């Protein structure tokens, strides 16, 4: 899987790809021009499978979560039969949102504007003054609309606005293996989103967060204060081996359809299951117990794979699953070419003990989030890039060729995985270039 999926050499107004000449460059206009974002909304966000939420966020009939995805208001919910449903949150009468709460349990979805109401299955079942509508009025056709496709893979719920979308499992391609590595941390194969959402804006182009989420090249300089914190707490940070920049070995891989991952030997703590002094002595038996269960269930080799590697996965275009200091689901949507809205959650096994859950959440905050020891510096880096991008007319190109001269394995600090994202981006955006 680690060899680069390389199309023929080409160059366009956005990408120069010359494998023979070992050159890959991205035009900075792609990160700064509002016209590009307009095209992305159609050619990327309305074409791909887009993450909406996790099945664990709604459990009982009538449970709902409302959230905005690709600029559209959605209801993620359970219907009367407890089936997972996704409705567009807009009344069929005048489009007012029919569910205005963040989350809860609904007996029905009621539009207060003129009083239309919908049952848990999205059927229109209340119309004040119905007699005034002519015979042509058909309430059966006026249920809450659903996106053309809803797909679920191991409780991760996606929608697609593309009527011709390929099946979700085909779309996910090699990313499935990495989702499986997360799900296998639960003895029953059931993970849950833990309550508490981190929602924050970054004044930067959304694709910069894609790059940043699996770019290990930046770790040593951007996150030196986090590394110092780890060191001071007793984590061993080894001197990088020759030719490496990181304290442990890690590779970058393209997974097909623009998905990619960095797959690293763990050197920091993991709730499943590598103890570090930060967790406290009293947490040691708990982490050992989790480890033993894993070995017992999966065998030594697979347990090692699950518990001793950290993986930052990008599911094209805007879902990031980071499994490191903790597991985070992170998704983000552009508000403007230089502005995005980020949402992040913690994910854990449903059967986790209160002690293990507390370790997971504490470990999360050592690195991730708006108050973490690392994420703020990522945000600063991205906003700093965005400021510099104002010079894109004078300095149009960013070099992205790290690792191109290598045959075979690419490191996590190389850029194969970034190129994989950009090549897919280019492929999908190409129809817009001629417009």
């Amino acid at each position, binding site marked *: 899987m680690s060899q680069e999926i390389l199309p023929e050499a080409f160059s366009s107004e956005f990408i120069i790809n010359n494998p023979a000449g070992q050159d890959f460059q991205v035009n900075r206009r792609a990160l700064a021009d509002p016209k590009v974002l307009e095209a992305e909304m159609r050619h990327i966000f309305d074409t791909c499978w887009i993450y909406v939420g996790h099945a664990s966020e709604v459990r009982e009939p009538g449970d709902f979560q409302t959230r905005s995805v690709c600029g559209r208001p959605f209801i993620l919910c359970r219907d009367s039969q407890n089936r997972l449903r996704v409705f567009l949150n807009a009344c069929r009468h005048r489009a007012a949102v029919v569910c205005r709460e963040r989350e809860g349990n609904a007996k029905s979805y009621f539009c207060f504007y003129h009083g239309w109401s919908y049952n848990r299955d999205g059927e229109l079942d209340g119309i004040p003054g119905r007699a005034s509508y002519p015979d042509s009025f058909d309430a059966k056709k006026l249920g809450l609309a659903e996106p053309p496709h809803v797909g679920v893979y191991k409780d991760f719920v996606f929608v697609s606005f593309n009527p011709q979308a390929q099946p979700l499992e085909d779309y996910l391609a090699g990313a499935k293996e990495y989702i499986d590595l997360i799900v296998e941390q639960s003895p029953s194969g059931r993970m849950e989103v833990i*309550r508490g959402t981190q929602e924050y*804006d970054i*004044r930067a182009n959304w694709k910069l967060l894609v790059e940043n989420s699996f770019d290990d090249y930046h770790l040593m300089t951007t996150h030196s204060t986090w590394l110092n914190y780890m060191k001071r707490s007793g984590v061993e940070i080894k001197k990088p081996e020759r030719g490496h920049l990181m304290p442990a070995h890690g590779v970058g891989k393209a997974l097909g359809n623009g998905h990619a991952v960095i797959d690293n030997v763990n050197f920091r703590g993991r709730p499943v299951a590598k103890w570090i002094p930060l967790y406290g002595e009293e947490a040691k038996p708990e982490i050992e117990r989790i480890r033993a269960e894993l070995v017992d269930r999966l065998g030594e080799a697979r347990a090692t794979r699950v518990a001793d590697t950290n993986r930052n996965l990008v599911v094209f275009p805007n879902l990031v699953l980071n499994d490191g200091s903790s597991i985070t689901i992170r998704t983000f949507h552009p508000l403007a070419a230089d502005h995005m809205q980020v949402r992040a959650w913690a994910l854990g096994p449903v059967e986790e003990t209160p002690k293990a*859950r507390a370790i997971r*959440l504490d470990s999360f905050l050592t690195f991730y989030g*708006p108050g973490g*020891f690392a994420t*703020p*510096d990522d945000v600063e880096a991205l906003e700093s890039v965005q400021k510099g991008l104002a010079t894109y007319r004078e300095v149009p190109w960013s070099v992205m060729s790290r690792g191109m001269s290598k045959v075979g394995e690419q490191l996590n600090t190389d850029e194969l995985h970034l190129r994989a994202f950009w090549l897919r981006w280019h492929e999908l955006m190409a129809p817009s270039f001629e417009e």
Partner: protein
Amino acid sequence: MLNLDNIHRSDVEDFLFQEAALLDAWQLDDWLELLTENAQYMVPSNDEPNGKSGETLFMISDNIQRIRERVVRLKDPQAHAEFPRSRTRRVISNVRITDWVYGDQPAVGAQANFVIYRHRRDQDIRTYVGSYQYILEIRPEGLRIASRTVVLDAFELGQMGLLSFII
């Protein structure tokens, strides 16, 4: 000497004003002196303002060791999100004593409203509004912070972006 029977709102108010002044001046080592040896500093996620750390995902949940490490980090020019440092100005009001805790270590629960303006060069002013919830121990040397929870009013962090400074 200050005790549970004579402590007055204005004692708490003076203490919180002093704390705010230290934080706005980035006198973080002096600020650490106001904390007990078991102090906690917490910011719950916006959608779980009453959440319990350890059960729900917070944005900050520091024990005293991590508070001290946070200060180490913030004093390092490599803490890029706060280099150059933001300028903050805290306005603290509506201070109330809400609990009187008798026992070996007398303490009061106190709440206050805050508005914090955060300025960075070439950026919009970011405004943080919410409520401080304290447990303040009454020590011979004065009030000391045992617990400090910052509850933001906003439904999401949104335009505030980060909690990279001590809020």
